[in-house]
Structures are given as C-alpha cells and as structure tokens.
C-alpha cells in the first residue's frame, strides 16, 4: 500500500493524464460530477456522491458505432474505430465500482457487447472508500461495505484527512502504480492502524443510517406473486414517468438504437433509454406496458427480481442517487419496504 498527500494530488493527476484521460469528481457550478481532469480543475472528493454515476465511461449516454452512406442502391457501413486514449476513473465509490460488475454481467455475457467491452478494457478503475456515508446511502443492504474493494477495481484508495492511501489491486493497477511510484510514499504501521480504525468506524456508521434496515432478501421472490401484487398500483401513483432515476442510476442499462440522417452520410448511435418512458415499449400495434404502473413495476421488478433471477445479484447498489433526485421522492427504498424488504 502506498500513500500520497492531498497537496501532491495535482501532480499525480497531471502524471496520470500524460497517457490517460483522467476522470475525477469535479465541482462545477455547485454540483460534483465526474469529468475530464484539466489543469486547475476543482477536484472534490469530499462530496460522497457525484451527481450522476461514472457508468457513463463504460456505457456512455450516447455513442455512435457506425457511419453509413447510401447512394442509389448501394449501402456502405463504416464501423467507427475507437481512437481514444486509455482512461482512468479516479474516485469510484465501492457502490459504483460494484455497479460496473453488474453491468459486466449484462454486456459481457454472450453475445458480447463489443462497444462496451472495448471501453471496459481501456479503463483503469481507481476506487475510493467512503468515510462519511450519507443519510441516503444503503449500500449495506446489498452487502457492499463502504470501504470494500470491489471485484474489478484496479486500485483502491482511501482518503483520510489529507492523506490518500493507494493500494494496487489488479495487474493494471500495479502497472499504473509503478508509473506513479515517484509520487507515492510507503505507508507506515500507524497509517495501517488508522485505516483499520477508519474502516471499522464507517462500518458502524453504516449500521446507524436511516435505511440500514432495508433488506431486499426479505422480499418474497415469487415472480408472479410479486408481479401481480396490488402494491404496484399504490406506489406507482406518484411516479411522473421521468427518467431521472434511470439516468442517475449506476446499474440501469436500457438503451435505444437510432439512426441519424446527416445529409451526406448518417450514423447509427445507441443512447440511454428508460423503461420509465411511455414509448419505451411502444410498437406500431400497441404497448404491453400502457400505464406508468407497468413501467414502474418493470424497473423495480428488474432490479429486485428479474436481474437476480438471471445473475444471482440485485441490480441495485444502494448508492441512493435516485433517493435524492426523484422529483416526487419515490424511490427503490420505499419500493423494497413496501414489498416487505425490511429487517424488523
């Protein structure tokens, strides 16, 4: 394990960004979001949750994957080759890191999504543990500890005071760490102790959080019974059918494929979509999910039942972004509770 002081971080950033696109939480206009680091950027690790999740680096909101041109009867398709640099996402919280694994389940299973795979392979994930979980956090409900090292992260870091502890996890992580060795110091015994204390402290804090009693395992997982539950009528009433929960969610991964006719040539892109939208499943001859109830049910059934049935994990990491963003304060914690997912 290594460490670096906060003051030296800009040096670290510029070092990393020599060969990588570096994405860090940047405070801009009063909101913190992962953005490309540039000299002088206002990096902020103190705000626990970035506004939107870092999933955009492995699954961008919009990506063009081929250009096409049709002239007369001839059609040409030109696949877009990625020419972008390898990248580093620095500051990925354990919950978000977990979400990457959940997306991997979907995109990297056969038939594999090559666009995703390419982005996934190009990136180095530098995760960062949490010390001060917020009221809206419930990662614990999905057995994600705030300081856990999630599968798939390359480096794990922890910020205590002005020290950032740095632990390479994967081969890529080791490689990156080696490149940065000039900037990183070794840790002392005292540091390790400090880390231990911090970890146990935060684990205690997590237990005190308002949502700590939420436990999806308590939900009766009988698919059809849950599907037909009357509860959906009740809890979907206030949903306004926007996509804010979906788009801030680190695990939501529905997408749409569209063509853009750009005059002399066109492009096909895929972009995030939301199962909360009314036209998501709309076909020429009808819509199997006609009201917001069905759409609302789909989203939560997917996270709590369908996905677990397919991948044996919940498709929620308890980051709590949706809790903060829903215009009408309806969110997955309420849904889980209503479905019985609560420890007494």
């Amino acid at each position, binding site marked *: 394990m290594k460490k670096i002081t906060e003051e030296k971080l800009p040096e670290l950033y510029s070092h990393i960004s020599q060969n990588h696109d570096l994405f860090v939480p940047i405070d801009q206009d009063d909101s913190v979001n992962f953005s490309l680091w540039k000299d002088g950027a206002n990096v902020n690790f103190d705000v626990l949750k970035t506004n939107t999740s870092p999933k955009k680096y492995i699954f961008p909101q919009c990506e063009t994957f081929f250009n096409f041109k049709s002239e007369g009867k001839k*059609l040409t398709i030109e696949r877009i080759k990625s020419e972008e640099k390898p990248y580093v996402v620095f500051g990925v919280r354990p919950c978000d890191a977990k979400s990457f694994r959940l997306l991997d389940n979907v*995109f990297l299973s*056969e*038939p594999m999504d090559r666009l995703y795979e390419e982005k996934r392979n190009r990136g180095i994930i530098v995760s960062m543990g949490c010390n001060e979980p917020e009221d809206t956090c419930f990662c614990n409900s999905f057995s994600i500890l705030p300081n856990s090292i999630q599968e798939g992260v390359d480096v794990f870091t922890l910020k205590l005071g002005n020290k950032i502890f740095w632990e390479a996890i994967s081969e890529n992580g080791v490689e990156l760490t080696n490149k940065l060795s000039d900037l990183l110091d070794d840790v002392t015994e005292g540091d390790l102790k400090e880390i231990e204390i911090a970890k146990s402290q935060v684990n205690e804090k997590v237990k005190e959080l308002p949502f700590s009693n939420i436990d999806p395992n308590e939900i009766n997982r009988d698919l059809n019974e849950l599907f037909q539950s009357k509860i959906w009528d009740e809890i979907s009433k206030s949903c306004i059918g926007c996509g804010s929960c979906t788009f801030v969610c680190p695990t939501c991964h529905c997408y*749409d494929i569209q*063509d853009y006719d750009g005059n002399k040539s066109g492009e096909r892109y895929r972009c995030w979509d939301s199962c909360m939208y009314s036209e*998501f*499943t*709309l076909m020429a001859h009808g819509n199997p999910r006609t009201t917001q109830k069905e759409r609302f049910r789909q989203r939560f059934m997917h996270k709590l039942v369908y996905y677990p049935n397919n991948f044996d994990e919940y498709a929620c990491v308890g980051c709590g972004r949706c809790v903060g963003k829903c215009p009408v304060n309806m969110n997955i914690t309420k849904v889980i509770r209503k479905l019985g997912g609560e420890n007494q």
Partner: protein
Amino acid sequence: MSCGCNDHIDPLIPQIAVVKSIRSDTNDVSTFRVEKPEGGKCFDFKPGQCAMVSVPPIGEAIFSITSSPTETEFMEFSIKRCGKVTEFLHNLEVDTEIGVRGPYGNNFPVNEELIGKDLLFIAGGIGLAPLRSVINYVMDNRKDYGKVDIVYGARTSGDLVHRNEIFANWPAGMNTNVHLTVDREEEGWEGNVGFVPNYVKDLKFDTNKVALVCGPPIMIKYVLLGLEELGFKKDQVYTTLELKMKCGIGKCGRCNIGDKYVCKDGPVFRCDEIQQLPDEY
C-alpha cells in the same frame, strides 16, 4: 444457441445484404429474398429464428426468417407494411442493399422434441412467416417427422400469403394436409369459412401430436384455448411471442417478459413456459 458466425464481430453491426427479389403476397405483405452482395446466404440459422433488418437512415426492425434453413443461397422475410421500416422496405427497388444482422433468438426444436412426431401447424395471417420456415424444413426432411397438418387462415382469401405453397406444394407433400379458412364468406372461396380457433376445434385433431401456433395475439389466445379443449397439454404446444426489440441480443431491456428476453430466450416458447411468465405481452 450459437451459430458461431458472430463471435468476433460486433453483434450490433449489420452486414450488407442485397434484396434480390420482392414478391408481393397480398396488399400489405411482401416477401423479400436477401443474399450477400457476392451471392449466398448471409448466415446460417434455425427455423423460428429472427434477424434484424436494417435500412439506414430509417432504422431497424426484427423479422422472423421465413425461408427454410435448408435453402442454401438466400434468406426470405415476409413483411407486413405497418411502420416506418416496413414502409420503406415495401417501397424498395430490387437490388438495393440493406443491412441484416442475426440470427437472433431460439428456434422450434426441429431436431429435438419434434423429431418423429406428428405436427400440427396453426397460423393466421402473416403468422405463417415463422412457421413456413419450419414447414419447409420439415418438408425437406420429411422422413424425420410424422403426419403434418397445416391450418391456415386469414381475413380474406386475398390475405393468405405464400399461395404457391399453401395451395400447391404443401398439399402435394407426403402425408400432409392443408386446411385453409377465411373469416368471412366470399365469392369464389370454396374452403372453410370461420375463424382459425373455431376451425381448429372443428377439425378435431387427435392429441398425439405437437402443435406450433403463430398469428395475431388474439388468435393465439383462442387457439391455445381450443387446443386445450381438444385435450392438448401445454407442453405439446409451441408458439412465438413478439415485443418491441432493439438490440436483438437481450441487453437493451425492452423485450423482456419477466426475466425472459423475447429476443434472446424467445421468440419460441412452449406454452407451459409461457404460463410461468407474468402477463405482460
């Protein structure tokens, strides 16, 4: 199932294909024959599987492949005019290039459960498209299967597709019966008049066979009830489902019924499987 041809290519990127011929079946249904630009079939597939047909800049739509896998040189799609993509396809000129990707989804178990069985095909309207692939496959491997009954109906006789096969080829097949019906009386029509589900009941099939059903949702619903009345068990009946699809590979998230994705886990379902699914299709 995997046919092995897509392992190294991005499954979302279509390959170029040429529309070699367009045969108009009815007012709003045409059958498109598609080949590689250099000739030959774009990819191998199994009966019941689908492919995504791409017409930039209009978009993509998924269709079941209606030709038999035994056709080595081409694939066919029977397409009903009902949206933007189909409209575009219908206005296409022969020899125009389009994109296709696939095959997607599962297939009718022609080499598994169906082997050696008596088969009952029940189709309505454009629903004959996926079954035609199976029927022709069966016809080409006729000795592997038992008796074949084909019940096919449409609103009017003008809406019956693949006329050559339903009127000539199939009835001429060995141990094969074709039962045609139209919804309403019409001049010159000498076949049965009435809805497919009723006709199926009237025909009083014995239950020692496997039924493959495809057609409009409402028809499927009543055919299944009818088959039940005749004594068919749910695991003797296969049908296909259709929902909005975009990716074709079970990822984009819109064609699921419960935890099953129609594009990947379907479109062919055995009825006892369907029964397990939530009612959202």
